[in-house]
């Protein structure tokens, strides 16, 4: 008889509930199905006698492969394998055939389990004989991860330690002092942290996360994401200049909201590695909304720090005339502001005006690049033309501006009334191009004085920024009567001082800002009765709401849903006949289309009729030139990517292209055309790469650090006093208001990209364009030490959300001598020292009905410690400590508790807290005193909740990705709860610390050292055939007993 290829040993014992009949039946089925296998029933296979018998039989039969059918394969596998390997068996698997108990009903299932395992055994005939890769990958740099890393590294093996935060240390470093010794955690931990950083065998990867791990025990390949810190850590010296320069303050996770941190920061002074990191969440919506791409977030951040010069420089990078734009901009940035979701938008535009006013007369002059000889002519000295001129001058071009009138400004001086935009502001700000050396030529008209071709011959490029200076005609009967004029023409005459007064009834037709400018100017010139007629409703009205309101206050009447039919009068206008409209479906512009109601004619009497329904360029000399085409709106038709006209080298910008637009739109257009001209003149293709960059705009701001505060309101002259007064009525805000207003900013993006840190960093380590990098690591074993977090306070609905209801870690920060309050206990709401503090143990723990059923293990003692520290810190402070029962199962723990009770005067109340709510400036705590048998009510200044410990979410996510078994709460499951508490369900993955279950610090350290021992014994084992091989997971799946 030849030797059987496989031996199957079927274990029978009473403890596992396997009766002789079932075992024999299984042996019979196996023999029938596998003729060349030998099936034996063994009595109590795991006993010394049983295992001896198995080994003896296998040796005597000369079997290369053995299958043991017994209970608890996970536990027994190692022992059987070891013994059989010594006896010369190459392969061994253990499978549980009776996970649901033995008996005739289980016969088929038992056989199938063995049959499947036989199938797994066969392909493993050629075992690999590799040694494990001598490197451990440790995930998580808290106290457990640090301990495991040091133990493994000290034994001579390599370790890669991955930490998602920018420093190792974990929650332990957030604590004030630790029980029961009352050591300072910073003092006892930093030596270990430094040892990690300096250890030859440890590669520390902070600010990194494990992307995935593949392979098998002994040989894993892990990919680590090195998250961009936006600061090159190889160059960073940890000096902190970047943080000092950073104007942005955001929520501090490290201080759990008890303090704010800079967007450029490190968590604490002893951080390891001692490097800074920039928090970036994307682009703030205000910044993305600006047509001129002005960094609104950045200058608001500077304003919040009172850094006016920095704010001014940042604004003028994109908007060269901030005092003008700060007065007349319709501020799309504020429409996009996320603060609207809290109360009202940050008053960004008013802040811009404040910065400009504040810096007036002290403006830093930009320095143009050296002149390189190329020449550009700009026609038109409005905002678009002057912006283009300025930008080109800064790039080193020789720039000449030709303006038809006698001064710069265009619509700023001829269109916008001075009560909105004082002329001295315009004069001063628009003097900048000339100051930098731009040549200004006034009273030079395109057509009579200069020609496009002439300019083109003399200059390398030409920019036409002619504006839109002609009002659209109403196109109705009577338009040529006296007393009928266009709004632009009317305003230009007013601004030239040609209209001393307006008498009688004025009717303005239109609904844009120009209509309001005309109407409000008329009021100031003495008109008795001013009416605006608009064909749609207030919802569709394009004018700024502020204009509508202001005009209303000054006495302007607005008639909605009216379309003019004809102007009536005898030689001179006397009235306008209108048709009443209804609103139909939306048109192309998205506004609802007015539909006339037949027979609804009505009249409005008027001595002066002003049409303000739109504007077009006033450029008759171009009309007859076939190279220039015009659109239906009257705007000049140009290539929309390059803004180049039909004539090569002749570009156009501003209202002449867009039709009447805002000042900020004109500036954006000027900036854009300057870029086109520069590309054109440097020989590049001006149409290449001009798409606006795709912006990752922040959709949900972090509201946790939002400061309370109402939007600033500027002082204004009383409406009644504005008649006849063309001086500015909006008096702006004070410095105090400006800072308070800027501090309302939610800092949606985190970093505002003001680049102040770049300027501050001496070693040039800051890199705002840094990307995440990926690194590959080979390791023989993985230690998961992903740690815990606290169950959120908000989950307990009967405790009112309140700044003075805090969790244990927040209290740790308030007590910590190096914390945000330097160890003084000051409550978050008003910074007062709390005289009565309530501590609530088991907040969220031991509450299977609503929260977590388990005991979080550390709360009794750490709350006791907090009570003690509070009593030391606050003289005469009272502590009421509510508990279910105080568990002190640890060395010196009971003594610690007794000390708190007897010597430190902590008032322990046995009972749960049912409700917490604010009454005046205190918190009312309702609960039970079970020993007294009554309900109690305590008024406290602050409440500290010892929230349940839950596994860190990042650890849960990683565990899921790696296929590590976890319980319903996310704690990782051991291979065996009692006897294999350090091994995860997946071979080669071990764990350390609280990711496996709640633990205190000494337990974490012991747990981590134990894990390190397991890893080391795995690394150090002599190479044996059965050592490193594919573990058929399903062969151990039946370990139910």
């Amino acid at each position: 008889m030849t030797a059987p290829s496989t031996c199957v040993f079927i274990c029978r014992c009473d403890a596992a509930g396997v009766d002789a009949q079932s075992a024999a039946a299984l042996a019979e089925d196996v023999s029938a199905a596998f003729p060349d296998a030998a099936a034996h029933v063994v009595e109590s296979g795991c006993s010394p006698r049983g295992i001896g018998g198995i080994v003896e039989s296998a040796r005597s039969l000369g079997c290369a492969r053995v299958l043991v059918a017994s209970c608890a394969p996970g536990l027994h596998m190692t022992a059987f394998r070891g013994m059989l390997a010594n006896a010369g068996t190459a392969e061994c698997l253990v499978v549980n055939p009776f996970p649901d108990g033995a008996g005739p009903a289980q016969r088929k299932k038992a056989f199938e389990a063995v049959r499947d395992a036989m199938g797994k055994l066969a392909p493993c005939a050629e075992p690999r004989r590799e040694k494990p890769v001598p490197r451990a990958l440790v995930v998580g740099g808290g106290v457990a991860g640090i301990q495991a890393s040091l133990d493994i590294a000290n034994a001579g093996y390599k370790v890669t330690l991955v930490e998602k935060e920018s420093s190792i240390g974990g929650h332990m470093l957030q604590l004030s002092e630790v029980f029961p010794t009352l050591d300072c955690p910073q003092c006892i931990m930093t030596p270990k942290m430094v040892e990690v950083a300096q250890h030859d065998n440890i590669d520390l990867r902070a600010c990194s996360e494990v992307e995935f791990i593949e392979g098998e025990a002994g040989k894993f390949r892990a990919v680590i994401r090195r998250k961009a810190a936006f600061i090159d850590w190889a160059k960073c010296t940890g000096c902190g200049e970047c943080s000092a320069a950073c104007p942005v303050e955001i929520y501090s996770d490290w201080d759990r909201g008890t303090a704010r941190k800079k967007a450029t920061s490190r968590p604490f002074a002893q951080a390891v590695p001692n490097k800074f990191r920039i928090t970036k969440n994307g682009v703030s919506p205000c910044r993305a909304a600006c047509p001129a791409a002005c960094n609104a977030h950045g200058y608001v951040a500077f304003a919040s720090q009172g850094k006016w010069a920095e704010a001014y420089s940042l604004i003028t990078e994109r908007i060269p005339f901030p005092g003008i734009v700060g007065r007349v901009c319709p501020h799309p940035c504020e429409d996009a502001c996320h603060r609207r979701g809290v109360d009202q938008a940050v008053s960004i535009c008013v802040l811009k005006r404040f910065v400009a006013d504040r810096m007036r007369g002290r403006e830093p002059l930009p320095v143009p690049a050296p002149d390189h000889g190329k020449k550009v002519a700009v026609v038109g000295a409005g905002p678009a033309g002057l912006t283009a001129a300025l930008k080109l001058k800064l790039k080193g071009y020789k720039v000449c501006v030709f303006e038809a009138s006698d001064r710069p400004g265009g619509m700023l001086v001829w269109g916008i009334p001075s009560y909105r935009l004082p002329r001295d502001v315009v004069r001063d700000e628009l003097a900048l191009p000339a100051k930098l050396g731009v040549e200004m030529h006034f009273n030079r008209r395109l057509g009579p004085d200069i020609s496009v071709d002439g300019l083109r011959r003399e200059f390398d490029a030409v920019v036409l920024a002619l504006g839109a200076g002609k009002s659209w005609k109403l196109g109705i009967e009577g338009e040529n009567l006296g007393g009928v004029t266009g709004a632009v023409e009317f305003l230009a005459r007013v601004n030239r001082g040609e209209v001393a007064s307006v008498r009688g009834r004025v009717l303005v037709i239109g609904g844009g800002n120009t209509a309001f400018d005309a109407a409000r100017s008329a009021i100031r010139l003495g008109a008795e009765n001013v009416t605006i007629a608009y064909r749609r409703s207030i919802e569709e009205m394009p004018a700024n709401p502020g204009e509508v309101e202001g005009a209303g206050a000054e006495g302007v009447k607005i008639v909605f849903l009216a379309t003019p039919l004809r102007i009536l009068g005898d030689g001179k206008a006397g009235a306008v006949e209108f048709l009443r409209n209804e609103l139909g479906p939306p048109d192309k512009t998205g506004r609802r289309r007015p539909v006339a109601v037949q027979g609804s004619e009505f009249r409005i009497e008027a001595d002066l009729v002003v049409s303000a329904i739109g504007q077009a360029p006033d450029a008759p000399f171009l009309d007859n030139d076939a190279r220039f085409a015009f659109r239906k709106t009257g705007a000049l038709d140009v290539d929309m990517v390059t803004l180049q006209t039909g004539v090569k080298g002749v570009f156009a910008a501003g209202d002449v292209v867009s039709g009447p637009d805002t000042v900020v739109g004109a500036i954006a257009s000027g900036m854009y055309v300057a870029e086109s001209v520069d590309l054109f003149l440097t020989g590049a293709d001006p149409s290449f790469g001009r798409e606006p960059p795709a912006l990752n705009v922040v959709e949900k701001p972090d509201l946790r650090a939002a400061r309370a505060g109402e939007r600033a309101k500027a002082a204004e002259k009383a409406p009644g006093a504005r008649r006849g007064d063309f001086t500015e009525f909006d008096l702006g805000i004070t410095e105090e208001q400006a800072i308070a207003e800027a501090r309302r900013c939610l800092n949606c993006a985190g970093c505002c990209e003001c680049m102040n840190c770049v300027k501050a960093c001496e070693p040039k380590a800051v890199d705002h364009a840094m990307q995440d990098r990926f690194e590959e690591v080979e390791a023989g074993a993985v230690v998961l030490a992903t740690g815990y977090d606290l169950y959120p306070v908000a989950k307990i609905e009967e405790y009112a959300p309140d700044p003075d209801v805090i969790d244990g870690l927040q209290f740790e920060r308030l007590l910590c001598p190096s914390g945000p309050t330097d160890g003084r206990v000051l409550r978050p709401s008003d910074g007062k020292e709390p005289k009565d503090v309530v501590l609530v143990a088991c907040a969220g723990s031991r509450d299977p009905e609503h929260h977590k059923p388990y005991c979080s293990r550390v709360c009794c003692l750490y709350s006791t410690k907090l009570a003690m520290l509070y009593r030391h810190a606050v003289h005469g402070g009272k502590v009421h400590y509510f508990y279910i029962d105080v568990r002190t199962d640890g060395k010196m723990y009971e003594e610690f508790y007794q000390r708190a009770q007897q010597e430190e005067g902590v008032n322990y109340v046995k009972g749960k807290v049912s409700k917490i709510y604010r009454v005046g400036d205190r918190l009312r705590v309702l609960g039970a005193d079970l020993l007294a048998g009554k309900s109690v009510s305590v008024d406290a200044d602050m409440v500290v909740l010892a929230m349940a410990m839950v596994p860190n979410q990042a650890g849960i996510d990683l565990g899921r990705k790696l296929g590590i078994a976890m319980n319903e709460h996310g704690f990782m499951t051991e291979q065996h709860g009692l006897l294999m508490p350090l091994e995860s369900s997946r071979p080669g993955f071990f764990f350390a610390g609280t990711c496996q279950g709640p633990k205190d610090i000494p337990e974490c350290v012991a747990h981590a050292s134990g894990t390190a021992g397991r890893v080391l014994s795995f690394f150090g084992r002599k190479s044996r055939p059965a050592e490193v091989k594919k573990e058929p997971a399903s062969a151990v799946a039946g370990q139910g007993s």
Partner: protein
Amino acid sequence: MKYGYYPGCTLKKNAASFEKSALHVMKAAGIEFREMKVWNCCGTSFGLTKDMLIHQIAPVRNILRARQEGFDAIVTLCSICYNTLKRADSFISSDSMVKRRITGFLDEYGPYEGGFPVFHLLEVLEDRIGLGAVSKLAIRPLSGLRAAAYYGCMLVRPAELGFDSMERPGRLRRFLKALGAEPVDFPLSTECCGAYHAVGEPATAAEFSRKIIDDARLRGAEIIVTGCPLCHHNLDRGQAEIIRAWPGFNPMPVMYFTQAAALAFGEPAAGLGFESNFAPPQVLLDRLAGAAAGREAPR
């Protein structure tokens, strides 16, 4: 959806003002409803004794009758009826043995698997009609009225039967806001009103109610609004007992959310049953009258 209105005993007697105002509101809101032709006692607190299956007969029979009369759902006003009917239905749905025995006893109504919808009127108004529509109906909005929304226990407890969060409910608050009122922050909105202690130990009930009313006042409330007849009884008529024990106590008006809604919808106060209040809601009535006068002046 056709709603069978299940009134229950209290609505026909002590809480007649609740019913009267609710009928106005349901009509105004365009809810398709009719009072059930035949109904019996909801079963009240007897339904809590799970082992006494006979006590589940009353509520289940009400549900089966609603189904037989062709309704799609039951709408209730009384919080206790709401709770009892829902609880009985959930009880039989979760236990097939119980279901078999009870439906066997009620076999003249045909087989029943459980799950017939039972709503409180507040749910219908918010989830079916919508608060936007409610706002539009409020032609005399309760502008500036600082109201404390009080839930008591039966509308929100236990979690699996309640119509909102047990600890921080918001339905009533949102509803009042839709009517134009200014609901105050009110932490004691789910504290016990004293419940049936009003019968045996009125002093105990008075102590409970006083705490709630005092807290509402502290928060700046001028009125307490509720959706439970028993709460209304304890908080309103219980004030007589409170004054006996604390003679300096200032009365605080209490009203049903349906009374508030009916007023806002333009119903005259006279027909809404305020005369049975211990503390009449004069603040609100005067203000509404004033506002109406103010509105009419320019004409």
